[in-house]
């Protein structure tokens, strides 16, 4: 298993997809810093309450297009490094060479773990980078609910934590984003069985994400919308059970991928 993990991580890390996804992710983080944060450097103390890093960083605000852009490109980026490799392995016959040398279980589990971790990393790294960059300009002033400058309300998920321990709140949200986007990336492993083309396989997580977004927004089930509940600014209030159920559904899809993969006649 250790060898398979090492090989899969190396394949993912050295792929053009990883470089492209990493580049686009950090570009969004840096451009947000340049266009939205740097102009604020002389206005930190101008208002009734100092501007705070917690209310202005990439995922802490809702007024610019950067958070929207980020949460619509990430579902594409997470799948680029590794999620398409399973489809490519099936098409090129690489999988036959691997499975003749190792147990099936090792190959499928390693593929799943690497896709999950790389997807999570691609999603969360630009967030951390942007938060740190923003913190170089804006002070980490503890949010105050009474100022009305912060987007979290009493009915928001972990609302109390945001105002008492904002760093803990952010860490929890980073973990949620990591796990959710990691699981979302693994959906393309299952899509490899259904989709004919590499393009549709890799974009399967994005298409699912887009449809869930559209359906939940248009039918009034806003609480189920990942575009809302994944953002630390919580433009749509949610609760932990919804997040957990959606992650479990995606894990279930991972189980189907493993089961079908083990039974599939690849020769």
């Amino acid at each position, binding site marked *: 298993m250790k060898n398979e993990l090492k090989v899969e991580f190396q394949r993912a890390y050295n792929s053009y997809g990883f470089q492209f996804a990493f580049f686009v992710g950090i570009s969004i983080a840096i451009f947000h810093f340049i266009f939205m944060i740097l102009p604020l450097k002389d206005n930190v103390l101008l208002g009734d309450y100092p501007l705070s890093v917690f209310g202005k960083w990439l995922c802490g605000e809702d007024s610019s297009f950067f958070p929207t852009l980020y949460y619509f490109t990430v579902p594409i980026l997470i799948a680029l490094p590794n999620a398409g490799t399973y489809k490519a392995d099936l098409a090129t016959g690489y999988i036959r060479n691997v499975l003749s040398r190792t147990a099936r279980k090792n190959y499928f589990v390693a593929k799943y773990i690497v896709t999950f971790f790389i997807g999570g990393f691609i999603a969360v790294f630009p967030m951390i980078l942007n938060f740190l960059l923003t913190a170089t300009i804006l002070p980490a002033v503890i949010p105050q609910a009474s100022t009305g400058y912060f987007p979290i309300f009493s009915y928001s998920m972990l609302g109390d934590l945001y105002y008492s321990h904002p760093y803990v709140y952010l860490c929890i949200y980073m973990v949620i984003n990591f796990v959710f986007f990691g699981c979302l990336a693994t959906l393309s492993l299952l899509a490899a069985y259904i989709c004919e083309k*590499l393009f549709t396989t890799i974009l399967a997580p994005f*298409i699912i994400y887009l449809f869930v977004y559209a359906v939940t927004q248009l039918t009034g089930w806003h609480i189920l919308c990942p575009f809302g509940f994944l953002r630390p600014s919580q433009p749509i209030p949610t609760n932990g059970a919804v997040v957990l159920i959606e992650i479990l559904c995606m894990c279930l899809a991972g189980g189907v991928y493993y089961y079908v993969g083990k039974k599939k006649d690849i020769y």
Partner: protein
Amino acid sequence: MLERKKTSIKGILLYECKNGFYQNRVQIFIGIGVLVFIIYMVIQDSILLNNYVNIGDCWFYLFSGSPEYIYSSDAKFELPILWFLFHTYLLYMICNYPVNDLDELGLQSMMLSKSREKWLTGKLVWAITMVCIYYILAFLVMIVEVIIKNNFLEQKIGLEFTTLIMGDKGFVPYILPLISDIAIAILQMSLSFLFNPFCAFVFSILYFILSVYFKNLFLLGNYSMFLRNISFSENGLNTEYGIAICVLYIVLCIFICMYHIHTRDIFGKSLEV
């Protein structure tokens, strides 16, 4: 005789019609489902008095988009969901085939046609045809759903464009979204040739989000939003300028595609992710 038939531009177009639609059959099939959903939601949201709905209002609602966004720290930036879904799915459908075909049968058709330009012309015509078919399908689905909706209520059929909307503006503003989508589709195609389909698709998403955020002459997404057109909004963008800029985009992108495909190493590396 057979050889001549395959090498003519007519043969290339015929090949594109058959192969292009066959390769994308699943996406087209799902696309019809997406359109049914989109139009259903449009009808739900654009119902007028007495639950009566007409096709003009639905068409207007689908492409209304959002008014100009004015940034402030209190404002909340939101995408017009139906508009975004409609355009994103269209670009998703047509993004991959032209480049992917080079790794498959396309190379043989290029050899048979004896001209890279003819082959590219086939791909351009296919992309334009796909955009037109998508719009025609949307219109047909709209007709069917409007008739079903109104007949269930035992009222009029509802196929008229209301005078409230049509007025003396003519039909050009109503087909401006189609023209701008053709331009964006060709822009996406040229990017997918220059880089790869994934880069092109990410760019398309970025382009649409920027179009909603900024009201700008050169962001073509603005022309597919009626609320940003001068015919419907006082400070909107000019329709004639819109058509001119779309044509400019199309000509520029065709020129870039022609140059690229002329110099491209078609036997080089296949699509890598």
